[in-house]
């Protein structure tokens, strides 16, 4: 097994996704800082771009991989750590992405009816940011369990 990009056993796609998701997590923190410094327009652009980019990454890279490698084995083999980690990452990741899209639509458009609009933006955004980072950390753990030999063994 030769070394390569990131020197793990992962394929190029998994390495690219890991780096992109890390960068997106950091960019979301930067976007939160923009809001704290009252630069709301830049904040909106930054967070929206990341949420939409993440949606593309989920559709193009993560969902096909999950469907092929994990979905056929659950729920039967959920007790195995590599399936459990991947499933938790996928489930919480879906919730985080949907919640982020909801904030995007509620805050950036007038598509939603009045009663579905958010009134406590800060609480929503902070909760989703926290959940997002939890999902990023679960993603790291999933990557390590699937692609890094000799760790946790």
């Amino acid at each position, binding site marked *: *097994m030769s070394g390569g990009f990131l020197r793990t*056993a*992962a394929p190029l796609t998994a390495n690219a996704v890991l780096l992109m998701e890390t960068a997106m997590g950091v960019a979301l923190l930067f976007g939160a800082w923009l809001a704290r410094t009252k630069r709301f327009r830049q904040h909106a652009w930054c967070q929206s771009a990341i949420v939409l980019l993440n949606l593309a990454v989920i559709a193009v890279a993560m969902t096909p991989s999950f469907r092929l*490698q994990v979905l056929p084995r659950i729920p039967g083999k959920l007790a*195995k750590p590599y399936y459990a980690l991947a499933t938790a990452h996928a489930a919480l990741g879906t919730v985080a992405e949907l919640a982020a899209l909801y904030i995007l639509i509620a805050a950036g458009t007038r598509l939603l009816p009045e009663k579905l609009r958010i009134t406590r933006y800060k609480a929503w955004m902070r909760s989703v940011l926290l959940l997002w980072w939890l999902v990023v950390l679960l993603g790291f753990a999933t990557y390590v369990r*699937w*692609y890094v*030999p000799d760790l946790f063994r």
Partner: protein
Amino acid sequence: MRRSVSFAVLSALGLLGMSALTAPPKNLAILAAQKAETAEVKIDNFSFGPATLTVPAGTTVTWTNRDDIPHTVTSSDDPKLFKSKVLDTDEKFSFTFSKAGTYSYFCSIHPKMTAKVIVQ
């Protein structure tokens, strides 16, 4: 003269009988030729072992995943000659190589895991 003829006939019959005893029956010989060869490849610690396996044509190779992480056995040829499903721990995949050649393969989850089967 009569005695020598009967001796010759008996000798011929004896030879025929001996050859019948020493040579295997025709259908048994065919069965022996058809008896499939088998070979094993173990998947462990993110590698295929042996990395190069040499077998005669007609051999059925069985891969067993002894690792504690899923792997696949995927032909490098295009179109793919063989491709296993995702193999969990202790699951197996078999393929029969009928033609001579060198067949490279890899794990599609961990593409740096590569090996080959040489069929003679």
